[in-house]
């Protein structure tokens, strides 16, 4: 195995500037959407007192969950000592920070009073899982920042494993915290399950790795650097395992819920007669977002094909967004059980309606654009990417 040399991307091509301009347009559209929503108030959105968290939360939580997952590649290298992943560690840390920044931007800009962010930073209620999350997010920035420094600075390299373990632990707690936002809402039947926390952790593995693979393949293709099959095929296999693990957790969650009579109504809603939510669950989350990617990753016809791996990663990301849509919006649309044993004729109940608006969608997509623009710029200014990941460079056991 030869020494890994890291190098900035040139970032001078027309393609680079076109990509930046395209992302910039999405960010501007997001800001326009935010101005429109904040100026008029949330009545211009599809959100209401029944669906209090809408499409922006779907994107925000997706990005936050994916962020912690994107750090896994670095963790596998430093915590679990798999040398082949080591050259990817810097990029892994960067993608993690960028996704978190994008997600938090969306979350904050959807607040009723985003101008009061300072209140959220100075007034803490330590009983609130939300308040813990604020600390966990800030801590993630700090720890991953230090982790990157340990990796970049040669004389600090020796500490990178210790900091890597700390970062890995922190990201597990962070995603547990994000899942727990829902896990402890006792009144909402779709959420009240401790299962939510580990399920979010597993979801983060899959979504984060899908993002990472797309960014890795795109940046190597566009900068005409070599990226060997040894690394790509390993990442591809890992992605398949994570997607299967998410499916397992989803199955346990729903089967477990079905066992309890009190939850048969909400399960029926998700799995059988929930209209758009049922369709999104089966066609979007299960088939398009899980089964098709698994087939693409493992079937002999498509296995090892970069385009198919890219397609699988895109489908996993779309499937992940759909999954969070079903959890967040569907979970609120289904009414709370206010009077067990009674039927509510008037005043509350029924499936709450929600139609996302363009402004909400643009805010969400703007979050993804912020993440991508951060990565694109930073790999231009700092040496995040190895100049080559060809098999003879990356794979210690490569027989060439």
């Amino acid at each position: 195995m030869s020494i890994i040399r890291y190098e900035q991307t040139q970032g001078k091509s027309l393609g680079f500037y076109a990509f930046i301009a395209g992302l910039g347009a999405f960010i501007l559209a997001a800001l326009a959407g935010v101005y429109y929503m904040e100026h008029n108030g949330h009545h211009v959105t599809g959100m209401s007192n029944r669906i209090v968290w809408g499409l922006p939360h779907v994107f925000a939580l997706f990005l936050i969950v994916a962020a912690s997952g994107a750090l896994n590649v670095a963790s596998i290298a430093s915590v679990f000592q798999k040398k082949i992943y080591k050259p990817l560690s810097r990029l892994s840390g960067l993608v993690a920070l960028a996704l978190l920044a994008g997600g938090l931007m969306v979350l904050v800009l959807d607040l009723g009073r985003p101008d009061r962010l300072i209140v959220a930073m100075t007034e803490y209620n330590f009983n609130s899982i939300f308040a813990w999350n604020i600390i966990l997010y800030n801590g993630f920035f700090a720890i991953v920042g230090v982790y990157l420094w340990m990796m970049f600075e040669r004389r600090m390299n020796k500490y990178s494993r210790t900091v890597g373990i700390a970062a890995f632990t922190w990201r597990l707690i962070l995603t547990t915290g994000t899942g727990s936002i829902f896990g402890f809402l006792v009144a909402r039947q779709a959420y009240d399950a401790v299962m939510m926390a580990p399920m979010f952790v597993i979801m983060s593995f899959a979504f984060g790795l899908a993002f990472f693979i797309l960014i890795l393949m795109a940046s190597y293709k566009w900068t005409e650097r070599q990226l060997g099959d040894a690394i790509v095929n390993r990442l591809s296999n890992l992605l398949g395992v994570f997607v299967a693990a998410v499916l397992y957790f989803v199955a346990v969650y729903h089967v477990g819920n079905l066992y309890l009579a009190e939850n048969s109504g909400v399960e029926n809603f998700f799995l059988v007669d929930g209209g758009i939510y049922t369709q999104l669950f089966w066609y979007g989350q299960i088939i398009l977002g899980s089964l098709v990617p698994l087939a693409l990753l493992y079937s002999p016809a498509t296995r090892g094909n970069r385009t198919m791996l890219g397609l699988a990663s895109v489908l996993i990301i779309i499937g992940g967004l759909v999954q969070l849509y079903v959890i967040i919006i569907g979970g609120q649309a289904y009414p709370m059980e206010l009077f067990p044993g009674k039927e509510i004729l008037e005043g509350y109940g029924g499936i709450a309606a929600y139609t996302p608006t363009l402004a909400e969608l643009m805010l969400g997509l703007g979050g993804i654009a912020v993440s991508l623009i951060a990565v694109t710029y930073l790999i231009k200014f700092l040496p995040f990417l190895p100049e080559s990941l060809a098999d003879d460079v990356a794979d210690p056991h490569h027989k060439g």
Partner: protein
Amino acid sequence: MKELNRRDFIKTTTATSAGVVTIASGITLTTYAARPKESDPVTNEKRWGMLIDTNKLTESNIDDMVNACQEEHGWGNETHSTGDQKAGWIKKVKVKDKATERISNLALMCQHCEEPPCVDVCPTNASMKREDGIVLVDRHLCIGCRYCMMACPYDARSFVHETLTDQKTHMPRGKGTVEACTMCVHKVDKGEAPACVASVNSDAVVFGDLYDPTSKINQTLKKVQSTQIRADLNLNTGVRYSGI
């Protein structure tokens, strides 16, 4: 009468102005100092509560309660908000028993839980419970995250979806923040009953200190069978119901 020269004029006016200031600050001081005299300081020796008897409460009673609340607090005139976006601090709920088909009508609002989930989840301490059990939102601290609305088991809270005008001076509301029934805390602190309670002429709704053995609510609760909505959640609500 002595002729007023320039020096005297200045002296007199200065003294008078000083007097006004003194009186004015005296008034201010008196206003703040007088509050505890009007009603006792907020302590946990009291727990304000409400008992709603659905056998006695008529549908028109409930409409009166809703109207009184709207009038007192100035909600319900939102012009842009539609459907579920409109504020609803108190609402009429009609329920039918699945087995017996018996129908009950009740007024549903913030249940002023002893263990309020909204207060637990609020990241900034904007949702809070007073010592006397009244659950409120501090609109200066609320960042509009709506986590409390996710956590409330009673669908009792509203988010202000639009810019508001003509608000009541005792009840400032604001776009982008969350609000709910305050149990008319501004009236309770002056020794008055909440607006919805006052709007019902019968004893279908009783308001008072749950802890005070001489209060009507305490005595009635000792006699009649009552229930808490979602009692299984162990939130120990301040609003109780009988007849459902």
